[in-house]
């Protein structure tokens, strides 16, 4: 058995160096050279200051902004330092209550809108950091945003439609709207 101790220890050491140190370092070196924006978090910079990442959602509750999906991160929503889903089961009364409260909040902010609420707008995402909402959830909010900003509803709708990302090659994933980018575009108008 003792003849096998040397290979065990030396191989573990060598592979730690190769797969644990060299491999991530080389990947980092190449990534930082050819994809620097992506490798560093796809940050959005406005007036020289980072205002967020196009991949990480932010909370919005002002009627003049499009709202993101509910987030279950703690101690506050969209805490990028502690990603988390709610892990509530559909049979849990706490989840049914939370969904009801979110529906009520959306209705309170937009009393004229009695349409059923798109499901993603009142359910917490898996990561708690979902940067997107469905096109249905964005269109649901157009009237409220236009009214709060006192701008033409058609213009807001066109802005939303311009921000819909389709499926990749028309096949993969789901259509979606990036909430942070949409709201920044609203502010820039």
């Amino acid at each position, binding site marked *: 058995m003792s003849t096998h101790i040397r290979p065990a220890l030396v191989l573990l050491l*060598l592979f730690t160096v190769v797969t644990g140190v060299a491999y991530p370092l080389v990947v980092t070196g190449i990534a930082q050279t050819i994809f620097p924006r992506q490798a560093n978090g796809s940050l959005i910079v406005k007036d020289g200051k980072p205002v967020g990442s196009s*991949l990480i959602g932010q909370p919005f509750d002002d009627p003049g902004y499009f709202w993101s999906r509910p987030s279950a991160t703690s101690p*506050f929503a969209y805490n990028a330092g502690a990603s988390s889903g709610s892990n509530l089961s559909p049979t849990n009364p706490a989840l049914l209550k939370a969904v009801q409260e979110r529906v009520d909040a959306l209705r309170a902010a937009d009393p004229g809108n009695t349409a059923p609420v798109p499901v993603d707008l009142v359910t917490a995402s898996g990561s708690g950091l979902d940067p997107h909402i469905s096109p249905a959830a964005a269109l649901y909010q157009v009237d409220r945003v236009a009214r709060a900003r006192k701008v033409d509803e058609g213009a807001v709708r066109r802005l939303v439609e311009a921000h819909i990302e389709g499926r990749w090659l028309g096949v993969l*994933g789901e259509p979606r709207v990036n909430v942070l980018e949409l709201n920044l575009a609203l502010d820039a108008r």
Partner: protein
Amino acid sequence: MTTSGILQIALYLVVLLALVKPLGAFMAAVYAGRPFWLERVFGGFERLIYRLAGVRTTEEMGWKTYAATMLLFNAAGVLVVYALQRLQGVLPLNPQGLGAVSPDSSFNTAVSFATNTNWQGYGGESTMSYLTQMAALTVQNFLSAATGMAVLVALIRAFARRSAATIGNFWVDLTRTTVYILLPLSFAFALVLVSQGVVQTFGPPAKATVVQPSKATLTEQVIPVGPVASQIAIKQLGTNGGGFFNVNSAHPFENPTPLSDFLELLAILLIPAALCYTFGVMVGDTRQGWAVLAAMTVIFVGLLTVAVVAEQNGHVFVEQGVDHAASALQAGGNMEGKETRFGIANSVLWATATTSASNGSVNSMHDSFTPLGGLVPMWLIQLGEVVYGGVGSGLYGMLMFAVIAVFVAGLMVGRTPEYLGKKIEAYEMKMSSLVILITPALVLIGASVGVLTEAGKAGIANPGIHGFSEILYAFSSASNNNGSAFAGLSANTPFYNTALGLAMLFGRYWLAVPVLAIAGSLARKKIVPTGPGTLPTHTPLFVGLLVGVVILVGALTFVPALALGPIVEHLNLIAAK
């Protein structure tokens, strides 16, 4: 199911199956020692490794030595991962200044990564330093995968050889797997992931001023980054599943786009599926590999369909005034715990793939699935992860079921069963029965202890029946080295860290050692020429038999437990409407 969902799932299966032959043939060349082009690039490096480690490549091992070296190497790995976590506070590459991980959590994580489970009781971004993520966790992602593949290759050799005393050299199998298969694939894949937005940096967390600051909570968003892509690549390819961030592949920095999702999904099942072809080549009859692959695919597609339908039809919030209908503008269905960019089809496809394999990474929260949608991943784990399965471990598990299947067929006609020309006798049956019985015992005993003790019940998040499902899922996941969770369960406690740590240890090595014992016994046997009484094992009949045995064993063992959990929960949900 929506048309778009069916299309995406079909595309996934087509691409996966199309890659089986090229990669499978390549891996067969690696293991059979036939020349291939990559050897010209890395051959010198491989020989240098052997020279430094004092490995004599010509020396083959019997099964006992093979098993002993495998255990020794894994034990050393566990110790290193444990030590790095305990000492990370005083070691470099720790820009967040994270302190030492607790002893029970360190034990759990060390075992978890060495056994290819990657159960995570901790939240990555708030617990592990960059050094720990790289030098401890990423390393074990490679080595635990290579260990599983080495054990499988030893078993395949045993079928192919006749009257042989040895089954290969563990050090050589481990090294060649890492150098020629896992490293090159991971390297290329990591760079593709970065192009999609997966982060890869050693810098500190990014800081951003949020667009709409709110009173109580947030004016500045601190966004953790890190060397993520390099870890995610091997986490998927090696069916490891341990994420850099707490929410794993639901996190936009681990899985930012539909394309990254598709490729990561492909990476989960790529090597396990391709190993079936490798198996066929190495035993000299590729039809044998295709037959096993066909059996796996039948089970996969069947259970996937059940889960997708359950989640798409999970109209759970209708009374609250919610629109669940799928349309061109939204995915609809049960979106709690799912990401917008993935919707229903990709979330459920992932949940099914990750539990078919011993991967355990998640891109949606299984705890928030509908009862039937959550039953499918749980049962796939309980079947022993033999549907594609973990790298190496999936196919060696499935080959144990094949041994049982030929035995059952042999009983029906009263003949000594054979598989691939090897007579299956009492010793093989004892060992393969052991392999098939150990994990259910661990799952059911573990879950019983969990629900009977205060420490176990304290972790439950969801009330009622679903709380039982959380505990059952945890022990299923740990014992079968999966690593996914009904993650509401608070498992970072001394009770769960210890109990699940032990389940992972036994679930891995108590299987691998009997498998190697069978390998030793099979290698010694002659190869019986096929006669008129031989059951052909490459036919649709045998595929059906194999599927039947897997489903039957899984159903007989787990239906009572499942009936107490997801099935009752489903009935309650219907009754409430």
